[in-house]
């Protein structure tokens, strides 16, 4: 479904990611784990066409994404839950959701998706007319996820979902990811909380300083002594 070959991402003169090759299959949940600054977020931004400059190739659904502007990529079905939530603070919850479904023209389809999302997050519908910045951190994170889901993604990119969330909210978020994936959504999950990520993911790539140092199934990674020591806390 998603395939990258020899991907390098640059910010100005600084190379954040070097020669990454990976793929994500249909309905698969793949995770990138690694420390802050290992290049995980840069990779995700590159998939969406938000990086300054990239080298290498990315294919999505068999189509080469070179020269495809980011808004076209979103139209093709790639959605993101950005790092740090990045909801629009001065828009209402409902407007934030509308932004997520920007390319869905049919009213009925939007309403159907809205119903689906509100089943997942009843709290959001209760607060649909409140401004984004009035929500609590956890609610903002839910909104960010809902905003991505409402756009009917084929591929969902999730960047640091556990960041700044209470442990209980983290559990809930991961539960949700699992559920959505079980319904057939393809997900690429970037996570600092390696332990959590590996419990939900099928496969994982370990990134260190812009390079993939290890790739394996999630269960194997969980058993790997090096990973245990470095990321799972012994």
């Amino acid at each position: 479904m998603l395939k990258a070959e020899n991907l390098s991402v640059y910010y100005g003169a600084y190379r954040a990611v070097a020669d990454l090759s990976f793929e994500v299959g249909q309905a698969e949940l793949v995770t990138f784990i690694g420390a802050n600054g290992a290049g995980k977020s840069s990779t995700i931004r590159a998939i969406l066409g938000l990086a300054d400059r990239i080298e290498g190739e990315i294919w999505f659904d068999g189509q080469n994404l070179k020269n495809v502007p980011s808004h076209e990529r979103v139209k093709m079905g790639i959605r993101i839950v950005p790092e740090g939530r990045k909801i629009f603070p001065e828009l209402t919850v409902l407007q934030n959701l509308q932004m997520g479904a920007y390319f869905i023209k049919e009213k009925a389809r939007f309403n159907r998706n809205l119903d689906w999302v509100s089943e997942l997050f009843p709290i959001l519908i209760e607060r649909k007319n409140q401004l984004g910045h009035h929500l609590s951190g956890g609610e903002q994170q839910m909104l960010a996820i809902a905003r991505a889901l409402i756009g009917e993604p084929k591929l969902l990119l999730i960047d640091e979902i556990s960041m700044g969330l209470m442990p209980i909210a983290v559990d809930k978020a991961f539960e949700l990811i699992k559920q959505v994936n079980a319904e057939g959504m393809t997900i690429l999950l970037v996570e600092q909380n390696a332990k959590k990520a590996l419990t939900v993911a099928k496969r994982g790539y370990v990134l260190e300083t812009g390079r993939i140092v290890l790739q394996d199934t999630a269960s194997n990674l969980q058993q790997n002594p090096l990973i245990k020591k470095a990321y799972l806390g012994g």
Partner: protein
Amino acid sequence: MLQQVVNGIIIGSLYALIAVGLTMVYGILRILHIAHAAVFVSGAYLGLLVYTYTQSLILALILAAVGCSIFGWLIQRFLYTPLLTEARIVPLIASVGLFILCEDLFRLLGGPYIRAFKVDLWFDKLIFFDTVVTAHQCLIVIGTAACLVSVYFLINRTKLGLAWQATAQDMDTAKAMGINIKQVINFNFIIASSIAAIAGVLTAINYNSVLPTMGSVPAYKMFAIVVLGGLGSIPGTIAAGLIIGMAETIMSAYFGFIMPRDAIAFSAMILILIFRPQGLFGKGV
């Protein structure tokens, strides 16, 4: 007194109309767009031209708006967009240069003298309780209201408007949501410039004159209004426009011998900024 309030509203709504475009440009690109005043003057000239040939005010307004949208778009595409990565003062100076160039161009094309812009309306004036409201003033109030309502509608009720708001708040995330930023910027300049054009035509009608230098006072006074409104806040700008318009009219009617009207706007702005550095409606830091 009431008469002064009416006059103040008229002036204020013209101010608000010009400043709204400026604040929209600032909201997205963070550029102080002095050449907006040139767009405003070209609107007045275009309106006059069309009106002279067709005698239709509606047509004059529409064609002025269309012409200025193109003008505004050209400025955006060929002057501002390439300069976005430079120091912030650079596009500002480029904008000033463009304004000087345009003023001279208007003088060369339209002649250095004042041209009358006389529009006859169905009635002459309305009088309520000793307060005179001329037909032109009615036109301005209606025109401004129509423009501001349509801007409100466009921004708050359409999808593109929603995208505009999102882009103004967080351009990067808006891009990640699949917004075509170029399209939003174009939309922004088209709306801003057509409103400026309408403001130009209405101002010309109000004073029954079109002249090459009619943009020089708005060029900088608009900044006082935009800053007072909190740089980038549309409701703030409208409120600030009305406040400054009223303050000027009332102050100069009663204390006119102390201060000229242009200084009133700026004194008010400085005083308010010292106490609220983010403007009246700006976000607290």
